[in-house]
Each structure stands twice: as C-alpha cells, then as structure tokens.
C-alpha cells in the first residue's frame, strides 16, 4: 500500500498561487507562498492572512448528552458548554498526559470537534470506543479555512455579515455566497479571526472571494508556526504529548473549576495532585539574548551548568524581531526573569525565562 500524501480541496489553488508544497502529517500543504514566511507572518499581524487547515480532522458527534460523555475523556466542562460556543480542550490519558488537543463546539443538534491532522486516526477510534451511544462521524467533504488578523472581520464579514456578530470562541452556521458554512471566531495565531468549514465543492470559490479582499493574502504552514509560537500556543508533538500534563504545559486555565475539583477524567489523580502541589517542570517562554534561534531539542542549563530542561519549540519571531522559544524547565527555574543558558551547537548562549505570550493576543472578547 502506498501512502501518497493527500490533497485538500484547495490544492490546485495553492499551486496556482505559487505555494511551495511540502508533506505535512501525510498531507501536501503549502509551507509558504511567494510573499515568504516573514511577509506572511506580518500580513497576519497587520492585516489578514488565509490558511488552508483542511488537513485537520473535522468530526461530528451526535447523541444524547454528548457533552457529559466527552467529560469522561477530557478534563473540560463540556456538559455545560452552551449552544453556539466553542471551547479548547484535550484528551488525557490515564497517566495525565495529553493525547491530543482539540476544539469542541456545541452546534445545537450536534457537537463539532476539530482535532490535529496527525492524530485523526487515534482520536476518532478513541471517541468511537469510549463515547457510548454517540455517533462519531468524520467529515471528509468539507474544507477548513482560517482567516486571521485584525482585518479578518472585514474580510469575512464582507461576505458573511453574521460573522461580525460573533465573539471570540463563538460559532454559527451562516451563508457565504449562498452556501451554508460553519463560521467560528477562533484560531491559532493570537489574532482575531475565523475558521470556516466549507463544503468542498464550494471551497475554492469562497476562498477566492476572501482573497479578493485587498487586505487578505494566503499564508502557509511556516507563518502559522511562527505566529502560534509568538502567541504562546502549544503545538502537539512539540510542546505537548502523551508524557506532558496540562498543568506542566501551562494549560490549567483550560480545565474549568468544577472539573478541577471533581475530577472524573483520565489521569485526574496526577493532574489534581499537580494543581495542588505544583508540577515538577513547567512550560515557559524563553528569549535568547543573541540572534541565534534555539530550536526543538536544545538543552536548557542553569547558570551553574546544571541541565534544567529542553526547548520544545523555537525559531525566529518576525513580530518580536528576534529568536523566541518555549521549553520545559524544572520547578524553581520557571519564574520570568530567570537567566539560563541554551546549549546551541555545543556553545552556551545566554537567554531569559519570560512570560508567555511574546505578543499580545488580540481576541475579540
């Protein structure tokens, strides 16, 4: 059996727009367009950028009390998620590690879930096996397009007035060019913006309509990564995985109070213990003082030369104008202002622990 990378409904459009296509999690996706990663990054921070995120898994959950049942797999309060609202969350394993992160929306007569591309094959069987009485259906015939940036409301609202009325983490069905789409005000860049689920046969037409706006340009996976990193948002497989707990990963904010108190989700013992006593390591922002980027795997040392952790994501932050990184450091070394050394190609480079995010998040609350 061959595993040729899959193509999204927008593949031909990416090629037409000059996208440089790479294999990402089994999908042929644009890493950048002729504008370049830095230009696309700044486009998103200053105006609006459009990303194809159709490789992500879109799943529909139907049944009685879906939210309550999801609570057996996730530490989030999905039983009380109101219709029209979306909430970030994660599946935890029995050891309190993170199996994947996801966005769950209450769409009224069903729940709409978006999971990472690389983990759809894990997550869907996981839900099918454990959500009793819930019909779990993966959607293969819809594109998912993100329009992000301070001008996103103009770009999307121009074609879809209902989008203007949404607040951050709200979702609705709305017509765009006469086609019913799911429009959600959220994203992965730290900017205001939308993710829009579009029937595949209309995806190119609607994407072209967004790109026809003078302030909207296509952006690839390269800019998506530098944008999320500056915004302090975790990437599954880099910053969070089966071994990292949500408390270590600074994601305790995403576990609602009732769930923290009551438990009742996989790995609750470890997570509640870490909430009470503090974790043994913590994910922090790291700002190298020089210009050398510190990438995934770089060792973090105390000034005394003791190994205290590792970089999990790092690169150049175009908006910051210098290198930025995230990584885990041992408890006691995680306060902002803490000076550390990064071992880059055998040499110690000075850096500082800083509060995340590196840039202010501009969500429309």
């Amino acid at each position, binding site marked *: 059996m061959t595993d040729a990378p899959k193509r999204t409904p927008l593949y031909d459009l990416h090629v037409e727009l000059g996208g440089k296509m790479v294999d990402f999690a089994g999908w042929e996706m644009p890493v950048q367009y002729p504008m*370049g990663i830095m230009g696309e990054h700044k486009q998103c921070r200053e105006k609006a950028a459009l990303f194809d995120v159709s490789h992500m898994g879109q799943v529909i959950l139907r049944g009685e009390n879906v939210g309550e049942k999801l609570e057996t797999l996730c530490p989030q309060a999905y039983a009380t998620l109101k219709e029209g609202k979306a909430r970030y969350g994660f599946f935890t394993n029995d050891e309190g590690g993170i199996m994947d992160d996801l966005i769950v929306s209450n769409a009224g007569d069903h729940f709409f879930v978006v999971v990472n591309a690389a983990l759809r094959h894990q997550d869907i069987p996981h839900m099918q096996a454990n959500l009793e009485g819930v019909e779990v259906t993966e959607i293969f015939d819809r594109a998912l397009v993100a329009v992000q940036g301070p001008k996103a409301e103009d770009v999307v609202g121009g074609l879809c007035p209902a989008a203007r009325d949404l607040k951050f983490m709200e979702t609705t069905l709305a017509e765009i060019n006469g086609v019913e789409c799911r429009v959600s005000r959220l994203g992965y860049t730290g900017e205001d913006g939308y993710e829009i689920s579009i029937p595949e046969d209309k995806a190119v037409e609607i994407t072209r309509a967004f790109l026809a706006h003078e302030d909207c340009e296509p952006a690839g996976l*390269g800019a998506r990564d530098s944008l999320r990193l500056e915004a302090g948002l975790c990437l599954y497989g880099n910053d969070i995985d089966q071994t990292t707990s949500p408390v270590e990963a600074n994601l305790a904010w995403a576990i609602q109070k009732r769930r923290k108190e009551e438990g009742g989700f996989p790995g609750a013992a470890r997570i509640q213990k870490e909430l009470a006593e503090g974790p043994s390591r913590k994910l922090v922002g790291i700002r190298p003082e020089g210009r050398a980027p510190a990438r995934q795997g770089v060792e973090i040392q105390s000034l005394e030369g003791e190994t205290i952790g590792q970089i999990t994501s790092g690169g150049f932050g175009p908006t910051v104008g210098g290198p930025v990184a995230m990584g885990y450091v041992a408890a006691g070394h995680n306060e902002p202002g803490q000076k550390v050394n990064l071992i880059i*190609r055998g040499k110690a480079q000075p850096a500082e622990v800083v509060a995340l995010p590196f840039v202010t998040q501009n969500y429309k609350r």
Partner: protein
Amino acid sequence: MATYYSEEHEWITVEGDIATLGITQHAADQLGEVVFVEQKEAGEEFEKGDEIGVIESVKAASEIYAPVDGEVVEVNETLADNPGALNESPEGDAWIYKIKLSDASQLEDLMDLDGYKALIG
C-alpha cells in the same frame, strides 16, 4: 580569476592564493529568509568537509561545509547585523569568508558554472 561551485551549493572565486567563499543564489532561495549566520573567526583552519558555519533561516538551520582545505583570513562581519543580505546578494556583497587555500589542486574536484547549472537543473 575563476569561480568554482560545490555540490553543497557554495561558490568560491579564486584570485591568487586567496579565495572568496559564499553560498549560491539557488541555496539562498531554498533556505528561505535568513535570520542568523554563525561564522568562524579569522585565523581558524579547516579541512574539506568540515562544518565552517551555520545559516539559520525562518525554516531551519543549515550547515556550511568547507569545499576545500584552508584558513579563514577574513570574515564578512556585515552578515551579523544584516543576515538577510544572504537572500539579496549571496553571490555578491553577502560573501561569507575570504580564505587562504592550502591545496589549490582541490579546486579541480569542484564544478564550473555549467556543471553547477546542470546539477540544480
């Protein structure tokens, strides 16, 4: 004065026993926007195949490998403050080192422009 090219996408222009070394436009285009260059210091010696620097782009870190044996006689220090020059003029102002060749006969193992053009297609 003659210019030679390596399979690692470097160019080397020889004038007497001093040569100027840099990366090709093709390499720069493949790397993407350069954000940092790590260079050796003047006086350091190296052998063919040694790592003599690193170029970090928005995408990844890429090593520079010595195409010949030699010694660094001058470092292009403008790249520290303006690494992006490597995208603008990698075969011009944004040279990386001036080096002293140890063994000029090694140049024969490198390609001329036509050979390099054939390599990159």
